[in-house]
């Protein structure tokens, strides 16, 4: 079942419901992830997904939107991100313009502008620039999915700020008052673990470490995501990717890379991995020159034949 725009909101009651629905939109989740998503939805807690790049963390949020409907609101974190960029900010130039416009209109009409009314007008919501966190609190038919991507790139101070919002689902803008979400959004936080996120934030969340999928699941994922890929090619790609991951490369390939690789091979009309097609498509899997050199120096035959 995958009700996208139906009147009844999607309300899974078992991990199997979740898995079936995600399956319907092309995301293959394992048991623990399905349970994690179920609990996040039912307990209204943020889902904290941590793992190597390319293990499908961001895709979870996208798949949830595909299943539930509603908006995907994405907040990409970076070093130095602050409340104004994440929450809301007054549009000062427009406020001043508005003030001048009112003044001019008033003097043309010949009456004195009412200072108090003018000022109240200045802090009208139309002068407020809504950033992702505020947008996520706005009322909606289907509560949005808020994706807070790569939280490990933000600073400690921002984490503390986020903790506040994720606990109360409310923010206070001094001139407007407190804005509270009637129904909290579904929140997915992701981290590549380039640094440890504070324990307090993780404790607010359901924490799940996403590993690379096992070869069986990866074959299924490739078969699902790459149209026209044969079973044997998908299996070869999954096996070779799994082997590359054990080679201590600078950037071990993730699921995203194995999908790219299979897509590249299918575009070339390959039905099997051969030494020449392997060489031609290696760039889809290995993103560092050093890694590339290391694998090609082994010789494709050796790579294809086994360790």
């Amino acid at each position: 079942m995958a009700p996208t725009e139906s009147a009844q909101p999607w309300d899974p009651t078992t991990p199997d419901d979740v898995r079936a629905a995600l399956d319907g939109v092309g995301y293959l989740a394992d048991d623990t992830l399905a349970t994690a998503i179920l609990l996040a939805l039912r307990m209204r807690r943020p889902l904290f997904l941590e793992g190597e790049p390319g293990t499908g963390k961001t895709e979870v949020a996208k798949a949830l939107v595909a299943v539930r409907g509603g908006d995907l609101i994405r907040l990409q974190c970076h070093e130095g991100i602050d409340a104004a960029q994440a929450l809301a900010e007054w549009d000062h130039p427009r406020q001043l313009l508005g003030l001048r416009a009112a003044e001019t209109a008033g003097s043309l009409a010949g009456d004195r502008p009412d200072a108090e009314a003018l000022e109240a007008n200045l802090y009208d919501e139309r002068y407020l620039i809504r950033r992702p966190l505020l947008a996520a609190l706005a009322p909606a038919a289907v509560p949005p999915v808020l994706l807070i991507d790569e939280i490990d790139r933000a600073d400690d101070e921002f984490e503390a700020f986020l903790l506040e919002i994720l606990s109360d689902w409310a923010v206070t803008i001094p001139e407007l008052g407190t804005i509270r979400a009637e129904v909290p959004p579904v929140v997915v936080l992701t981290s590549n673990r380039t640094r440890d996120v504070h324990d307090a934030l993780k404790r607010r969340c359901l924490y799940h470490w996403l590993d690379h999928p096992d070869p069986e699941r990866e074959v299924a994922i490739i078969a699902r995501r790459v149209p026209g890929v044969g079973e044997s090619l998908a299996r070869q790609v999954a096996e070779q990717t799994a082997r590359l991951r054990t080679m201590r490369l600078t950037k071990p390939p993730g699921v995203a890379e194995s999908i790219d690789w299979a897509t590249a091979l299918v575009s070339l009309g390959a039905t099997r991995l051969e030494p020449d097609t392997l060489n031609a498509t290696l760039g889809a899997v290995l993103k560092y020159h050093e890694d590339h050199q290391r694998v090609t120096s082994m010789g494709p035959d050796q790579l294809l034949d086994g360790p």
Partner: protein
Amino acid sequence: MSVGAALTGPPATFEAWADELARLLRTAEVTVPVDSVLTFVAALDEVGAFGRQAVHDAALLTLIRRPEDHAPFDASFDRWWDGRTAPFSPGDDTAEAEVTVDTDEDLGAGDEHGDDDPVPALRFSNIERLRRADLADCTEDELDELHRLISLISLRPADRASRRRRPRPNGDRVDLRRTMRAATSTGGEVMRWRHTSPRRRPRRVVLLVDVSGSMEPYARALLRFAHAAVSARGRMGVAVEAFALGTRLTRLTRELTERDPDAALSLVAGVTADYSGGTRLGEALDEFVQRWGAPGMARGADVVILSDGWDRGDPDVLDAAMSRLGRLAHRVVWVNPLRASPGYAPLARGMATALPHLDRFIDGHSVASLEDLAELLGGNEPIGR
């Protein structure tokens, strides 16, 4: 679904049952706060308490927050789940915390300190030359002179942006309040925009000085450097912390605030009982990360380790501590006095283990190299990863 119905055995409340697992985890050195246990109970209310997989996943998602804890979790969970119908006797919860310490006594990498042919001692009255001389090769008189030079090194740690803002003429954001206040003097007409930029705060610096036996020729000079750095904190609102690494970890910050370097160093000698003792670098670093670093001291800080990388402990402990440190700190800088020797390669097992986790790996054998270190800490140069 009511969760209480799931219980077949004699245990008291459902919370108590969940708490059993938390206690098992704690004996396996996994941190489990009480509110996580309550979250776990709430999660069981959703998934039921019958299926092993469901309960396993609910516990994993609510009680565990680090992939390193997965292995102890699985062991504790098996124990807990298999024993769930038995009466929970209070004496039964002593999990065997299996700590297999890899006692690898084969130090195959070789005795690499000490057997380097000493570089012929440099004897120059010229201070400029002395600054570049290897501290291990200097005479007592020269050392006295060099120690004086070290005390003069001033550390100005790099800035980091804080959340607060301050007025700045070419700041990146309009300061509406000041703009409007200035406009009142021109009849409400805005003549000049005022701006703000983020306030700057000095970045914390943490110095970890190896005082084990193999570091003896350098330890005194490095402690003097630490003294010079720590004394800077009073002057500029700088936060500098110093620790001694030996067989144990000792915090030196308080001792080093003593103004006179010689008095400070004798205070330090009083608290570092293991001065010139053996090296347990991994364990000492692990203790630093657990007790000080993770609770806040290392977060966003520049962490400097001054050591030859000679470790007799378990390399896995060092690897785990360095990896954690690398994720906590802004930069991890390793200063190794041996690095300047001709033909040096980081072969000491500890050094080789730590190397992948470092942002910078630099010399520390001479006064000039310590000046470079102070420069690096102030330079705020882009980090390599």
